[in-house]
């Protein structure tokens, strides 16, 4: 597969791993005090575990898994609203696959489907528009979630529906944005991170400039990375080089896909369709200012919240994590998943209690499902 297989080449991987080890030596990192790099994006967390990269790098480099999993951070209250919409007679509720399993206070969309709600999995919001086109007598709602990578897709789908004069299509908008979340993370005390791996596909849309505050104001290196194992390893190496040389810059490893200025057409469409929300709840992180977007008044008929008269207070929402859980500490990398008392006991991928166990990109779920302990560590 072109542009994929080459970035999985084992010989090149060995080369980058060796280069990483050399630089770690030059930095003087020790296993008791490793270099800590956070990958912000859930897709990167997935790559790390899928290829066992955490086992391949020396113990002097530690991956801290960031909160970049839009499915995981969806507040229960928003899931409850989704379920309520899905359960209305006549509604066809369309959603991405992995959002179906997120538990709400009462149930998940998957459970609602089992109980008879017409919940359908789609690959693209365009497929939801197609369902609306084919079923003029049904109310079709699309569960829009994701970071900036996906916001243009939803926006363009709304514009498509408008252009066709569809009157039975709306979007339940839960899109969130990355830079405010990183700001919130860095503002919270006791973060001990040496560098960041930036989200490659978010950057494809917003470019790499929005991360400059991380380098300029917080003095941490950032490297925007692609999603193949070589992309991640090369990006780790680039972060380490910055640390070694005492630099703090935003670098772009994923230049083949993510331009520095992002995608102007996509950004323009988003500006046309969306406006920022004052704040939005992130499960595990709490309320984050200016981190969510909503559909503009001009497109009110395509906004499910207006269409279904949903009142969603920004202060409402259950970010109450279960008693005894330490989700927020795992989220900011202060502890590792196995250190949470609920990990593997009551909180498992099958019975997720907290945000990070809900989708396979969540740090706890990835750890639970994929991780192979090193020799001498508990299973």
């Amino acid at each position, binding site marked *: 597969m072109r542009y994929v297989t080459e970035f999985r080449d084992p010989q090149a*991987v060995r080369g980058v791993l060796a280069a990483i080890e050399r630089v770690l030596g030059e930095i003087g990192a020790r296993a008791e005090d490793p270099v800590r790099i956070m990958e912000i994006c859930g897709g990167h967390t997935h790559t790390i575990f899928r290829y066992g990269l955490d086992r391949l790098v020396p113990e002097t480099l530690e991956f801290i898994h960031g909160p970049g999993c839009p499915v995981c951070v969806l507040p229960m209250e928003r899931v409850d609203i989704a379920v309520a919409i899905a359960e209305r007679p006549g509604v066809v509720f369309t959603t991405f696959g992995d959002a179906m399993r997120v538990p709400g206070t009462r149930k998940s969309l998957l459970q609602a489907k089992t109980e008879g709600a017409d919940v359908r*999995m789609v690959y693209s919001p365009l497929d939801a528009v197609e369902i609306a086109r084919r079923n003029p007598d049904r109310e079709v709602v699309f569960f829009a979630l994701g970071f900036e990578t996906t916001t243009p897709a939803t926006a363009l789908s709304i514009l498509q529906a408008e252009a066709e004069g569809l009157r039975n299509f709306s979007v339940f908008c839960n899109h969130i944005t990355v830079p405010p979340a990183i700001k919130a993370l860095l503002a919270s005390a006791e973060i001990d991170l040496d560098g960041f791996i930036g989200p490659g596909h978010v950057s494809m849309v917003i470019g790499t400039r929005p991360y400059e505050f991380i380098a300029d104001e917080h003095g941490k290196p950032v490297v925007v990375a692609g999603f193949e194992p070589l992309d991640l390893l090369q990006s780790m190496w680039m972060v380490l080089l910055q640390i070694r040389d005492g630099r703090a810059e935003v670098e772009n490893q994923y230049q083949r896909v993510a331009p520095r200025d992002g995608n102007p057409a996509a950004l323009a469409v988003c500006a046309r369709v969306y406006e920022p929300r004052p704040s939005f709840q992130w499960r595990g992180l709490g309320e984050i200012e200016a981190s969510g977007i909503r559909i503009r008044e001009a497109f009110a008929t395509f906004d499910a919240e207006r269409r279904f008269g949903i009142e969603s207070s920004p202060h409402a929402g259950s970010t109450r994590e279960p008693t005894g859980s330490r989700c927020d500490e795992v989220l900011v990398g202060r502890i590792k998943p196995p250190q949470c008392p609920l990990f593997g006991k009551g909180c498992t991928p099958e019975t997720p209690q907290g945000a990070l166990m809900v989708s396979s990109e969540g740090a706890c779920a990835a750890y639970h499902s994929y991780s*192979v302990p090193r020799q001498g560590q508990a299973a």
Partner: protein
Amino acid sequence: MTLITLAHGGGGKAMRDLIRDVFVSRFKPESMEDQARLSAPGMLAPGARIAFTTDAYVVSPLEFPGGDIGRLAVFGTVNDLAVGGAEPLWLSAAFILEEGFPIERLRRIADSMAAAALEAGVRIVTGDTKVVERGKGDGVFISTSGVGLIPPGCDLAAAHVRVGDAVLINGTLGDHGATIMATRAELALDTAIQSDSRPLHRLMQAVLAAAPGVHAARDATRGGLATVLNEIAEASGTAIQIDEEKLPLRPEVRGLTEILGLDPLYLANEGLLALFVPAAEADAALAALRADPAGADAAIIGHVVDGPAGRVVLRTAFGGLRRLELLVGEQLPRIC
């Protein structure tokens, strides 16, 4: 009459006519008693054992590239017998039909079953027909039970699997699951992928002839190869490690799993044999697999290793390790 009605399940003339027209004409049972009466050479030999299995088939859509529910119903049960070292002999077929189902489609499915039975060398000797109200079925559900004969001295079992055993498979991963996924209209994916539905007993016999020391065999169906590996590891109290590089995968299946964010190790198969063979006989087993068209892509994919009981681990192309756990719920396409 072109559609199934409740009368077709009522026990009266309509039902009798349907059975005759659709099933008896194709499956040709020897008698129309309430039970089939059967004998096979070797069934009374000392040490010979009967193998008996049952399965239900509820696949949707009913017809898909590379097969249909009827073909699955025959080969699936044949394969469950085959992996016990049995020669499959006789099948029963019970149909639960939904009111309103087109009879012409049922004839097509029955044709497919007759052809599959012929290809597998088994006979469908008894059956049942029921009809449920519209909305209470999915067109048709089929349940088949199968009887086979295990020769004396043949004892394949998960418990026999030992550290050092080689793990072999006969073909590419996930073809059936990918095919079904690709037929989902809302995903709008266009591909030439076909189900790998096929009988595996001749392949099994060829392997046993070349490598009589085979410890265990399974056919990987729902839940994919990873599920079978977990089952065997747990049942035998061993650990298994497989090499990602050795896993055969069709390019289109790879493409589909990349687009949707799925793992081919968890996709369903309908013609995949997993064998656990003592190391000394692994090459002979592999050669026997490859000599058969159903084993063209056969490979040794890993080994049973020292490790915590029940643990299954994948070694990635560059030596990284990740666990292959049992699937939780259904595998859903990712957006992340």
